[in-house]
């Protein structure tokens, strides 16, 4: 029987609720549009100017040559366009007008929202004011940034032309290695963590104590220290000659295992004790009860925190920089480092951030989805009524 059929039988009725937010009004809509307009100017407008400069036919300007962007520098024109677009009068106008609209939106929105008599009107007023605040903040930051040395920043961090010989194949390879390191670490960590959690939950101190020592050691020392030390520990101590990449995978697994153990322990302890009692009363052994009744439920509850651990691990893979990997084994951060040392340009770091984000953002989104499904309801804790 499907869930819906069961509901129908239980007399549960499902139907979308009516929209009860009520009508809009000119004044509240004005507040909203002031906010939207301010954001559009400050973000959209400035971006449009940048795109216009980037895509139209241009030459190196006096100003650019003055600040050292000479023709012999790779990507000088692209950087120059960014700087010029930022300096342009259009940009100045957009920022000031946007900020002014933003302030107007704040004034109108916060001025009227208490008097609004429908939910829609009140939300429009407040949203307009919030967007206004955001627009003013962005405008101020950009204006201050512009008054410094944006030329130097752009030259070193936004010269995307220098990336071209290193891009796509080596970059994708680096990204793949980042993911492989994180994935291997997480997978190994989950297995180690589950075993450690079982030991930590033992009623016998002789089983608990060593697991505790392990967990506290790996949680208590820096990951970068573990990476740096274990390579030589394996090499000199155990005469195991392993590639830095493999050592890194092992260390990530050992480290993640300690954190995952705590996550699993908390998850298992969050299962009502009646579940264990029910399983044991049916004649199951402790191990069977764990395997069939407790752990499957605990795993569901710990998926979000484990995925968070994974996001953290993706970023922590950057620490293998201390091991010095072969070119083919390079992950994102080392790809950037070698690019920077080849070209003396830090735009590689900018690209690296984008690389990490393309992996982490979908994961973060996924975690939030899973968490929402597990928690269901409760979007923001706003209390009751108005």
């Amino acid at each position, binding site marked *: 029987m499907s869930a819906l059929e069961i509901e129908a039988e239980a007399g549960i009725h499902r139907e979308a609720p009516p929209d009860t937010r009520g009508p809009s009004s000119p004044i509240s809509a004005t507040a909203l549009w002031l906010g939207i307009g301010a954001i559009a100017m400050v973000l959209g407008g400035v971006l449009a100017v940048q795109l216009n400069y980037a895509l139209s036919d241009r030459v190196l300007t006096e100003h650019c040559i003055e600040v050292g962007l000479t023709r012999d520098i790779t990507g000088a024109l692209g950087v120059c366009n960014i700087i010029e677009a930022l300096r342009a009068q259009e940009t100045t106008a957009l920022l000031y007008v946007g900020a002014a609209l933003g302030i107007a939106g704040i004034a109108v929105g916060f001025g009227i929202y208490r008097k609004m008599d429908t939910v829609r009107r009140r939300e429009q007023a407040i949203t307009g004011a919030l967007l206004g605040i955001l627009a003013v903040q962005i405008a101020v930051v950009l204006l201050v940034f512009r008054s410094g040395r944006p030329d130097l920043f752009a030259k070193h961090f936004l010269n995307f032309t220098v990336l071209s010989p290193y891009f796509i194949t080596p970059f994708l390879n680096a990204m793949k290695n980042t993911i492989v390191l994180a994935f291997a670490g997480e997978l190994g960590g989950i297995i180690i963590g589950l075993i450690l959690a079982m030991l930590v939950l033992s009623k016998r101190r002789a089983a608990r104590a060593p697991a505790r020592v392990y967990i506290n050691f790996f949680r208590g020392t820096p990951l970068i220290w573990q990476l740096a030390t274990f390579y030589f520990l394996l090499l000199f101590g155990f005469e195991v000659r392993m590639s830095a990449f493999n050592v890194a995978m092992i260390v990530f697994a050992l480290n993640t295992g300690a954190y995952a153990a705590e996550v699993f322990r908390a998850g298992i302890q969050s299962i009502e004790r009646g579940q264990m*009692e029910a399983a044991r009363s049916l*004649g199951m052994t402790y191990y069977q009860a764990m395997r069939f*009744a407790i752990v499957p439920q605990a795993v569901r509850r710990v998926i979000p925190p484990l995925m968070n651990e994974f996001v953290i691990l993706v970023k922590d893979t950057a620490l293998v920089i201390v091991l010095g990997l072969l070119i083919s084994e390079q992950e994102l951060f080392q790809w950037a480092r070698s690019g920077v040392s080849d070209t003396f340009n830090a735009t590689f770091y900018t690209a690296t951030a984008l690389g990490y984000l393309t992996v982490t953002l979908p994961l973060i989104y996924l975690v939030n989805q899973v968490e929402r499904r597990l928690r269901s309801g409760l979007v923001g804790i706003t209390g009751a009524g108005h």
Partner: protein
Amino acid sequence: MATEATGNGDIVRLEGVHKWFGDLHVLRGVDLQMTQRDVVVVIGPSGSGKSTLLRCVNMLETPTLGKVWFDGRDITDIRTNLDEIRTHIGLVFQAFNLFPHMTALRNVTLALTNVLKLDGAKARERAMEQLARVGMDHKAEAYPGQLSGGQQQRVAIARALAMEPRLMLFDEVTSALDPELVGEVLEVMIRLAGEGMTMMVVTHEMGFAREVGTRMIFMDEGLVVEAGEPREMYYHPQTERLRQFLAKVL
């Protein structure tokens, strides 16, 4: 074997059972015998040790002192295989404790396949039989979250019965139910008693205790204060404490 036969045909025998939780002395020396087809109802105020006593019978709580025999075997002996003993003792909880990630059917078959090692088809057949016995076969594929409290409790009873236990323990199984759902669970228990199941029932349902019990035990402050024939105890309590208790619950 040190587990000398002291059964005299008793299915359960408790001898001088004490239980401490920390420094809380919950059971203070309880003796009890149950024979086949007995329906022992345990009543008493909350905190009197009724549930602890019942849980000592399948060693979910280990008595601090004293001995528990099941079917002639000393199950307080550390060498006794409790997992095997527990397959003969069904326990139904106040909070149902169904496995929420499994269907009603899977709740029942889980121990059949993994403990009794029945093959899938046989386990399924036996589970459906027991679900039908409690009137829940039509909800075999439903998850506990989709069932009412009364329905969950009936599935929990089927889960215990499917092991074909020689003794059933009921731990305040109707206390967590809405009043309108109590009847359907009691009905199942009454039928079980009628079929000759040996049962120990901790309950606040005085009507059930009086009509269905073959023997009644009144506990207070960790001791058996009065024991005897249910109607006799109900209508002619011998001790002041039972009189007071009955006056309060009625």
